[in-house]
């Protein structure tokens, strides 16, 4: 494997980490108004992700930085092309992050309700738009010979990409419900468990629609034929088995398996995309690929060495921080947020 492919894999890993970790953060935010009615309940929900949401978001920032360093053309085309979509994501993330911090620092119920809305909207928008953005990467968007995106915001919205957005939204919501069932106790835990059981079937429904859409709207059939391969099949099987563990009330296993669904879905996505990084719907010759979008060997080598040195430490202390905050949160826990 050459360095360009290695970096393609590393960026996939960063996005997998991001969607797995921020996935349940977004889910918790989306479920906030439904699962927690009283203020004390809302505080419990927010405090489950309180110590970790910031670090989870860093996976996305690191993915952005890695795109810039390893594939500057991918970074430039994607970010300038999906301009307004990214503005919306940024505004949502700004509001959401501040809302976590500010919400409980004032007693006025209107103040708190306003920030709760910010958390909800700030979670819904990126949960939807990340799916839309990734859908556009595989489906292809108008890109010219200078590697510049030539469409507009509404070119990004099509039936296929909206299905992708709905799918990411649905999976993150379920992921959030499962996370809350493991991190809370009492009434919130029961609501989260019931909700997870209720929304599993709709999530599967959307996943089936997405699977069909993959064949209908993009030329996946040409590339993979009848046998879609190990990764998408695993992601389907794991999603289906989530249903079994939900019925058995083994929510830990359900969480692990849905985590695997996310892992294998994102991996499938990047596997289908390779060796392209962005598909041009204008002309196949204008596709951005791991070769023509990449940085020089020198830069990739340097970044590989730096990453190999740093990443083990990062993973170690990230894991440790989850271990520190492993206990379930209740209204009696000391609540910082």
């Amino acid at each position, binding site marked *: 494997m050459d360095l360009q492919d290695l970096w393609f894999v590393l960026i996939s890993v960063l996005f997998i980490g991001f969607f797995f970790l921020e996935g349940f953060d977004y889910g918790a935010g989306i479920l906030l108004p439904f699962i927690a009615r009283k203020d004390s309940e809302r505080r419990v929900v927010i405090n489950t992700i309180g110590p970790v949401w910031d670090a989870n978001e860093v996976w996305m920032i690191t993915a952005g930085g890695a*795109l810039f360093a390893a594939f500057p053309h991918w970074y*430039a085309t994607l970010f*300038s092309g999906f301009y307004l979509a990214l503005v919306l994501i940024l505004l949502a993330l700004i509001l959401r992050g501040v809302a976590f911090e500010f919400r409980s620092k004032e007693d006025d119920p209107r103040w708190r309700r306003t920030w709760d809305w910010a958390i909800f909207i700030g979670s819904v928008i990126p949960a939807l738009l990340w799916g839309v953005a990734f859908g556009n990467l595989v489906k292809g968007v108008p890109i010219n010979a200078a590697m510049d995106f030539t469409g507009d915001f509404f070119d990004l919205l099509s039936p296929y990409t909206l299905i992708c957005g709905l799918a990411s939204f649905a999976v993150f919501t379920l992921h959030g419900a499962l996370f809350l069932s493991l991190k809370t106790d009492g009434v919130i835990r029961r609501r989260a468990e019931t909700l997870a059981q209720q929304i599993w079937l709709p999530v599967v429904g959307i996943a089936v629609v997405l699977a069909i859409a993959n064949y209908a709207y993009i030329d996946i059939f040409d590339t993979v034929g009848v046998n879609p391969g190990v990764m998408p099949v695993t992601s389907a099987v794991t999603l289906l088995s989530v249903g079994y563990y939900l019925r058995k009330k083994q929510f830990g296993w359900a969480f692990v398996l849905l985590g695997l669904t996310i892992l294998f879905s994102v991996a499938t996505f990047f596997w289908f995309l390779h060796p392209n990084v962005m598909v041009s719907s204008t002309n196949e010759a204008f596709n951005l690929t791991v070769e023509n979008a990449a940085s020089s060997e020198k830069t990739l080598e340097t970044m590989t060495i730096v990453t190999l040195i740093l990443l083990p430490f990062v993973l170690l202390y990230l894991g440790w*921080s989850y271990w520190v905050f492993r206990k379930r949160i209740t209204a009696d826990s000391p609540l*910082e947020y």
Partner: protein
Amino acid sequence: MDALDLARLQFAVTTTYHFFFVPLTLGLSILTAIMQTMWVRTDNPVYRQMTRFWGKLFVINFAMGVVTGIVQEFQFGMNWSEYSRFMGDIFGAPLAIEALMAFFLESTFIGVWVFGWDKLPRRLHLASIWLVALGSNISALWILIANSFMQQPVGYVIRNGRAEMDSFGDLITNPNVQVQFPHVFTSGIVTAAFFVLGISAWHLLRNNGEKRDFFLRSFRIATVYGLIGIVLVIMVGHTQAQHMVKTQPMKMAAAEGLFDSEDPAALSLITIGDWEQREEVFSIRLPRMLSLLSYNKLDGEVKGINDLQAEYETTYGAGENYIPPVAITYWSFRAMVGAGFLMLGLAGFGLFLMLRDRIEGPKWFLRALFYALALPYIANTAGWMMTELGRQPWIVFGLQRTEDAVSPNVSAGMVAASLVLFAAIYGILMVADVYLLVKYGRQGPVEDEHDTAPASPDTAAAAI
């Protein structure tokens, strides 16, 4: 305004706003860590209260810095795609390393610190705030390595139609970052010190009974911290200016309003110029002082704008304007230096009062310190305006012009829309942020169960 102007304005707005929070994070993380260290070492509960109180303000400010920082990581690609294509090979690396080395560290341990008061042994909890401080300041180092490449490009070759990395070692040991990072690091210290001084002064003016001891202690720590900081800022700033005379003489000429080369060169105290005609109209100047500051001797030529323009036309191509906006570069330089020397005076006088045990003596001084809260913010903002505007028309000095760096496919309408949205949200958040800072700043330290519980009767008595 066309797309270029709007994109520049958007960068200015989002970056200035972001940097409103960053220096306080840099300096107050360290100061909070120092306070907590004192608590762990002495067991005196007042230091725990100080850690809690200043730490709470720190966390409110930190959140704003984090969320506005996400925009920074994305907007090079969004608004400056040509820049990203041309410079990404060398400029992307420090940004990615910043995320990997610093963002993970600070974001993980801020969570551990804020939520870990009851979950961790004291020393481990103390270590987490030091790691936040380390992460924040390492983050500053990497972004300044990236910025230094724009001021003084090193370690690259032009190949395949772009700037490619030639030496990573040269990139990270850029002579520019060696003076720029210490300047930013120490201005973080100054910002935090004046933040603590301003709020402490406000409380001391009200002579708040039991809070008095708390704020006197905070005041003393901040005075020492701030005086060290401001002396270093000025010293490093001087070195930085000498470096600028060598590497970006045009920026220095603009910052001094110096139109024609001089040997020996005089230092401008105030210059009123006809910026369009590139002529001086009126000035008060100290003879030979600019030469002295530039070269440590009483003579030596400092080049003026007009000569540099002629020189750059030979080097970079005739018929182009290589002059930055002179008036704003000149005045922002003066605002920064002026605010800096004012802070030096205030911190120095603070130490003088401290030595004589008369901190609460002159009321006007406490009032002045409260208003001086604005000074570090003025200096920080003006400093960056001078640095970035003084480099124009270049985005990377000598390599790429700002007008060639903008995204060709992002229309003026799109930038205008996003600019309005950012400005609106940023405006609202600023109100909420200031509201909370004022609320908690006024309230002062609060007794929580932790402050009283672990303290033994002896230490409690010692604190009184």
